[in-house]
């Protein structure tokens, strides 16, 4: 595999210039003839009965085409994983972001004005904002019909015998950790444009990471409207960041559909930044109770975790994050006895959703912080305890994960070497490390984990490839093009990747679970191989050579040169070959399709099963200093070593790691969506403390290549891992620096200072 020409090259993102020139078409840029503008009115209370809505003034406003309230929403139109969320609420609001009315008008200004004319009478109800309190008997119910605030979800597993293992452990550390709301902060805000044709078929332009599943949701929506047997076409514009936020369908999309149907015109709904902060979903806050034990030699004996997750008022896919949290809980390091139980609890807060890592950052924060504490208790070096328990290739973990390739050990070595380079211990300076495991070869959450690809070649040697996979900035366009170019001996310029339209592109489960490079990459490879076979067959006839002697390189098919040196090898240019194939009697054009569904398993009743074909590993190491007077943390050095199988494009790979780490740093140190009794208080970038360019640090991102046997050219996923172990690495380094352990994210200067004060009082 050493003589690759395109795979492994740092080729800049194919649409980078388009974006830099402002020519990429985002949802904001889409404008259709006769288009109307939709706007949504939100609740003024966290929890209230809607007594009366009067829309007559709004309806009378000139330029208003439609006003919708909960009454206008079909009964069966419900969103989310638990189908508990109608796009407009009728009798009751359960959070500040509840939609209570919507309008379509000639301009955004008129729509806004119309919203201000809608009169709503509420009767405020007592709200509940703390998930643990919401679990108590006498707490107010968010949804009366549900009879309890605890969702009926099955998140519970027990492998081995935790109680026995606990008794036999030499050291045990029990702790409570907490994480809070953070949000994706996509540069491009949410939006959709919906329109119906004269036969009531729907076309929707929308920012989505899941075109095929969104299509299914919208078909369901149409059925709820009484529109049976219709078509839905989902067109995905250029997306300005996803990070999990577009892994579901949302009220604004359903409202755009309803408004478009009512007005018979295209309707566009675009969020402004404030709305983006207030009305899109966050990462789930978690309260984590963890117990881990080890024996005298540092071998982990058991891991026991209980979690309470703040679901918010409605249920999106986010409520299934415990199924991914199970991965680090059962399979990060070798530990035979594990128990886990999670409760998702309704509150009157904003509802949570998927976000990069899908629960893994929360679980890893608890596991890796707690592991450092355990190492200290057992008197074992922090790095050593990780080596003792590290996963190895060939392992099958208690949950049934088959570890094919595993670079954890190499990652640990690499990070250790970097951190120890300058080992003079300075005052208030400390180092910390934390590891991660993540799915790296698909994730069978849905019934199919597949991706389809259609490939065609033209008379000029160019390729159009229609993939089900989604590029949302992460670089699937490059990965697809590089894989296909490599396989067919072409250059990336020869490959046009189309990934944006369900009318054209085959099915795919979506851009999530760090699966696109692996699954969509394998699908593209499969299609390219099919085409290659055809090319070779044809070329062998023309060049009068055996197929095994043919090589595709530099847009040409060569016959391997076995003869004398001076004679150039026999060859034919690929475009010429294609034309020959096309323009001869009984001509043919080269096309291929391929559907790749990885050989992974759905989890069974006991949650066992090889969820992913392969797993990604990584270790982060950080060196930082703590200002003991203010509590401020300053990062001095950061190393993120990742086992990626193979870097198909090292430039984009580094981008994913850098971005992941900076997102992780915000999670660790500064970011928090502030809620005051359910109301978002920091709905802008000034008060939501996302890292700025000035805060970003230099990150070393060594790539560990383990060449996975299932990955396309050996690659595994890297989309999410970069933000997974950041927070515990930092928490561990702070402890190393000044001896205080912060168990509650974000680790603000204030928390550090308070802990330092408490420590000095105890001494």
């Amino acid at each position, binding site marked *: 595999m050493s003589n690759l020409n395109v795979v492994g090259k740092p080729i800049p993102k194919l649409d980078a210039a388009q974006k830099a020139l402002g020519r990429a078409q985002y949802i904001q840029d889409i404008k259709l003839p006769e288009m109307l503008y939709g706007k949504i009115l939100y609740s003024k209370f966290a929890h209230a009965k809607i007594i009366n809505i009067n829309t007559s003034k709004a309806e009378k406003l000139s330029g208003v085409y439609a006003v919708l309230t909960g009454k206008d929403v079909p009964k069966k139109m419900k969103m989310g994983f638990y189908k508990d969320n109608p796009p407009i609420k009728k009798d009751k609001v359960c959070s500040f972001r509840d939609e209570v009315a919507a309008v379509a008008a000639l301009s955004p200004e008129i729509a806004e004005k119309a919203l201000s004319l809608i009169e709503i009478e509420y009767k405020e109800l007592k709200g509940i904002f703390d998930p643990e309190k919401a679990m108590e008997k006498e707490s107010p119910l968010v949804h009366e019909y549900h009879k309890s605030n605890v969702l009926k979800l099955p998140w519970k597993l027990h492998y081995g015998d935790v109680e026995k293992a606990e008794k036999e452990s030499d050291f045990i550390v029990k702790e409570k950790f907490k994480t809070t709301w953070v949000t994706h902060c996509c540069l491009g805000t949410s939006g959709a444009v919906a329109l119906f044709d004269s036969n009531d078929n729907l076309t929707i332009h929308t920012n989505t990471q899941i075109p095929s599943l969104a299509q299914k949701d919208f078909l369901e929506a149409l059925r709820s409207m009484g529109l049976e047997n219709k078509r839905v076409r989902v067109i995905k514009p250029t997306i300005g960041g996803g990070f999990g936020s577009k892994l579901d369908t949302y009220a604004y999309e359903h409202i755009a559909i309803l408004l478009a149907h009512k007005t018979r015109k295209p309707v566009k709904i675009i969020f402004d930044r404030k709305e983006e902060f207030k009305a899109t979903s966050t990462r789930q806050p978690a309260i984590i109770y963890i117990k881990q034990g080890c024996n005298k030699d540092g071998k982990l004996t058991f891991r026991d975790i209980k979690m309470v997750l703040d679901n918010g008022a409605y249920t999106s896919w986010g409520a299934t994050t415990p199924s991914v949290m199970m991965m680090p809980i059962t399979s990060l390091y070798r530990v035979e006895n594990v128990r886990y139980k999670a409760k998702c609890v309704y509150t009157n807060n904003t509802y949570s959703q998927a976000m990069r890592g899908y629960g893994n950052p929360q679980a890893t924060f608890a596991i890796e912080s707690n592991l450092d504490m355990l190492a200290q208790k057992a008197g074992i070096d922090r790095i050593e305890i990780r080596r003792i328990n590290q996963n190895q290739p060939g392992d099958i973990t208690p949950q049934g994960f088959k570890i094919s390739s595993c670079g954890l050990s190499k990652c640990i070595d690499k990070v250790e070497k970097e951190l120890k380079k300058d080992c003079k211990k300075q005052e208030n300076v400390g180092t910390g490390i934390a590891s991660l495991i993540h799915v790296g070869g698909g994730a069978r959450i849905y019934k199919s984990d597949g991706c389809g690809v259609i490939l065609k070649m033209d008379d000029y040697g160019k390729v159009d490839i229609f993939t089900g996979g989604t590029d949302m900035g992460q670089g699937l366009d490059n990965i697809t093009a590089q894989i296909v170019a490599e396989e067919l001996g072409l250059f990336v310029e020869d490959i046009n990747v189309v990934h944006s339209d369900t009318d054209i592109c085959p099915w795919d489960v979506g851009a999530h679970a760090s699966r696109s490079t692996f699954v969509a990459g394998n699908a593209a490879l499969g299609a390219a191989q099919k085409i290659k076979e055809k090319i070779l067959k044809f070329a062998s006839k023309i060049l009068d050579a055996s197929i095994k002697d043919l090589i595709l390189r530099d847009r040409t098919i060569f016959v391997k040169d076995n003869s004398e040196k001076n004679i150039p090898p026999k060859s034919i240019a690929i475009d010429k070959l294609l034309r020959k194939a096309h323009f001869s009697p009984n001509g043919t054009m080269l096309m291929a399709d391929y559907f790749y569904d990885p050989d992974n398993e759905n989890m069974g009743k006991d949650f066992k099963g090889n969820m992913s074909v392969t797993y990604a590993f990584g270790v982060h190491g950080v060196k930082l200093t703590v200002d003991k007077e203010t509590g401020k943390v300053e990062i001095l050095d950061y190393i993120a070593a990742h086992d990626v199988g193979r870097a198909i494009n090292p430039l984009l790979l580094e981008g994913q790691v850098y971005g992941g780490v900076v997102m992780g740093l915000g999670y660790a140190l*500064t970011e928090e969506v502030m809620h005051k009794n359910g109301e978002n208080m*920091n709905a802008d970038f*000034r008060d939501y403390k996302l890292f*700025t360019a000035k*805060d970003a640090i230099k990150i070393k991102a060594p790539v560990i290549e383990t060449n996975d046997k299932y990955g396309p050219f050996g690659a595994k996923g890297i989309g999410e891992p970069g933000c997974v172990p950041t927070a515990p690495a930092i928490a561990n380094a702070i402890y190393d620096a000044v001896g205080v352990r912060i168990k509650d994210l974000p680790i603000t200067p204030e928390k550090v200072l308070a802990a330092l004060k408490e420590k000095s009082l105890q001494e």
Partner: protein
Amino acid sequence: MRLPRFEYLKPENLNKLLQMLAIYKNDAKILAGGTDLLVRMKKGLLKPKFVISLKDLKELSYIKQNNENIKIGAKTCIADIIDSNIIKNKAYALFQACQKIGAATIQHYKGTIGGNILQDNRCIHYNQSAFHRSGRGACHKDGGKICYARDDADRCFSTCQSDGATALMALDAKLSLAKKGKKRTINLADFYTSDGIIPFIIEPDEILTEIIIPIKDGVSFYKRLSCRSSIDYPIVSAGVFLKPLQKNVPLEKNTIDNARIVVGAIGRSPLFLSSASLFLKGKKFNDINAFKKASNIAMDNASTFAVHNIGSTTLEYRCSMIFQMVFQALEQAVNLNQENQK
């Protein structure tokens, strides 16, 4: 969020501008860089009928120096102040403060020093969208009678978060104001009201023309704490100025003749702390304990003005950091100067 409608005016000289102000008065707002004004307008916090832009006005952008004073035109942009050797050499605290304002884009592109001083006071309960505010009773600053930041407040305690003003007050700056047919000069320290609703003593038809910084022998320093390295208002800040008693005596052997300690981002205005400042008179420049004591006095006095109106920290933390900022500013002012003398 969109800007409400307004009429846009662009006078080409000061005279025309003053005439416009004399006519439109409260209906008009001055637009310098707009980095404060436009944000507030988008949030629906104010809806001026006329926006008078300083864009074409050449007269108010300058940094000049004579024997006694540095004079800065109100429209001078923040980046020019950062680049000015006059400011770096004679008003170091202002140089430092300007470096911290917003981000490079705000400093270079638009933000002015006049706008920086005259930016409105802020409060997390008030600087919200119109929809957010409409969901609850109006607070004092919004025309109501309650305060969300302090239960018993009879007035608005919104905070002045101007970095520039805090440094300038430490440097004992004065402001020149003009209206049609009239000019006046006022000490910056006397420029503030005691209510966060309208924090400045400026008339609707008046414009800030110039900032005057007296050139004094002494050292100054500005220190601030914030969550991030850019695009972040201060949680607390401190500007200090220390004047030595003896000429030509190195600082470590010198005595403090006069001190000015100012704390920012805590009160309705930058807080000049007279007892803390006075305490340092006669103390040695190397008297760390005196610095600590003064910082403690500053903290005690300034804390009383603070209310819980920023989101990122608790009131307790914010107040406890007053000590740190003042102390570090004092200490580093002396250190920096000793290094420069070497």
